[in-house]
């Protein structure tokens, strides 16, 4: 018997994490806001039932939220990242293969038993995760990734499935394909779905059954695979180890526009610091740095500029990267422009071990080892006492443009100073 593919994801992941570590939020409506406290990006089931809409700007619905007593939180990535790792490592023992697809979802492969469906297996896993982590999850099962995604959708949409649905155990999956709009099929982009609609293909069943030659002409081998997956033939393998990153980017919108060169330097510097930290965590060095900045595309006089430099020797030393990146800032800056966003892109990444030491290298090996130890020490302190514990002077102290996170909960699982309280009273 062929293996089953599962798509396992957490419901309202960010809001659920907030509830998992804060007992005052259990059973209460909670929403989480995007960067800079912009829009609602996650709603607890209680908030959903109140009719709070997803994606709404916070300032528009602030009074509605207050009226209903909804708890509002800024995005707490330290908490979500930690809970995500806990979630993924608690799924691993119960499947043969796991592909972590995003912060809150994973594809899994497991053997399909000969004489029964997998609904019981999935329900048990679901209650275990609920009990051990306090996170609600949904599980869709099918013979292929595309169908597993669809089954997961059914599991969540239909309350009588209680978060679990094994499409692979149904005699004929056609009715479920029929009720799935073509836009909601995993892998169907906006262009392909418009093309489908023009041809009268409105749902997943029709996409599955259309002439494959026509689909191949439009979408090539990707389209053919999609159709085979809808027919229940697995042709998208699970990717266990993500490929090494070839570039890494840190960019953010400012909480308020920047119009001085000093502030732009500080912003670029803080993104470089973050990017260098990421590189070291990935065990990589960069050979090329690009810095970019732009004004708001919605304001008149839109301006956007990028500048790039090649490092003489690939590096992940924050001081080296800062020096190179900050030299580019004067070329980006224009007086009287109100900058809304800036970023740093690191390219030509290579593994740390591969470093070619050449004759013109600015550092001796010994000096370099000392620099590496220093970086490790800084990363360690920041991990332990919170990011920003050790700061680089170039970033400025508490800048006005920094990400707004006024309703941030504590780093309850990653920082000793932020642990939840167990009352002995």
């Amino acid at each position, binding site marked *: 018997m062929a293996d089953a593919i599962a798509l396992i994801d957490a419901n309202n992941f960010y809001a659920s994490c907030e509830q998992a570590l804060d*007992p005052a939020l259990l059973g209460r409506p909670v929403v989480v806001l995007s960067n800079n406290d912009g829009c609602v990006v996650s709603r607890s089931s209680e908030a959903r039932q109140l009719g709070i809409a997803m994606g709404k700007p916070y300032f528009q619905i602030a009074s509605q939220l207050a009226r209903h007593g909804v708890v509002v939180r800024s995005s707490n990535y330290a908490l979500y990242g930690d809970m995500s790792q806990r979630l993924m490592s608690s799924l691993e023992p119960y499947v043969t293969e796991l592909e972590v697809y995003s912060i809150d979802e994973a594809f899994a492969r497991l053997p399909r038993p000969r004489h029964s469906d997998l609904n019981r297996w999935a329900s048990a896993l679901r209650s275990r995760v609920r009990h051990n982590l306090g996170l609600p999850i949904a599980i869709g099962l099918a013979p292929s990734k595309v169908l597993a995604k669809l089954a997961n959708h059914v599991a969540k949409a239909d309350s009588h499935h209680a978060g679990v649905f094994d499409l692979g155990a149904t005699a004929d999956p056609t009715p479920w394909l029929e009720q799935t709009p073509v836009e909601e099929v995993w892998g169907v982009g906006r262009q392909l779905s418009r093309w489908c609609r023009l041809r009268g293909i409105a749902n997943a069943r029709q996409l599955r059954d259309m002439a494959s030659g026509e689909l191949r002409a439009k979408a090539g081998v990707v389209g053919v695979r999609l159709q085979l997956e809808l027919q229940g033939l697995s042709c998208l393998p699970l990717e266990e180890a993500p490929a090494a990153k070839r570039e890494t980017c840190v960019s953010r919108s400012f909480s308020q526009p920047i119009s001085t060169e000093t502030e732009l330097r500080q912003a670029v510097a803080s993104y470089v610091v973050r990017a260098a930290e990421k590189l070291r965590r990935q065990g990589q060095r960069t050979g090329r740095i690009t810095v970019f900045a732009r004004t708001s595309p919605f304001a008149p006089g839109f301006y956007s500029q990028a500048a790039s430099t090649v490092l003489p020797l690939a590096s992940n030393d924050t001081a080296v990267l800062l020096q190179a990146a900050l030299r580019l800032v004067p070329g980006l800056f224009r007086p009287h422009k109100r900058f809304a966003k800036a970023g740093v892109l690191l390219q030509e990444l290579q593994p740390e071990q591969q470093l070619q030491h050449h004759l013109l290298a600015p550092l001796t090996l010994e000096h370099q080892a000392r620099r590496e130890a220093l970086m490790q020490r800084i990363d*360690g302190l920041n991990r332990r006492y919170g990011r920003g514990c050790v700061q680089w002077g170039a970033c400025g102290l508490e800048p006005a443009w920094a990400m707004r996170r006024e309703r941030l909960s504590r780093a309850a699982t990653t920082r000793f100073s932020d642990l939840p*309280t167990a009352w002995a009273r």
Partner: protein
Amino acid sequence: MGSLRPERQPLRLPLAGASVAAGFPSPADDYIEVGLDLNELLIRHPSSTFFLRVSGDSMLDAGIQHGDLLVVDRSLEARPGLIVVAVLDGAFTLKRLVRHRGRLRLEAANSAYPPLELHQCGDVQIWGVAIHVIHPLGRHG
């Protein structure tokens, strides 16, 4: 530098062995093992283990003092006799789960605090089981 994430970067303390400046290697070097990891001792299920900070003195007789660090495993089943973290009025509350005259109740480990009968206090959820307490011994270092 020890990490807060137990499963990722264990703190290694050397168990044995000595380095000799020159000449003969230490005869003990052949017997060096990997080193002791406190996380290994204290944490059986890393993904479901959480740390909490104790506030209050109601568990004194169980050896749990104000300010102590509590290691809580959410994957364990709460059985009578175990010290548990319960959710009571929207807060984590530390008690011992006890079967008393056929009924479950939450008891403090300090006679100044009365027990809570579970059937009388409505909605109580057991959040996790406390498995270790880490208590610093006065001022040192």
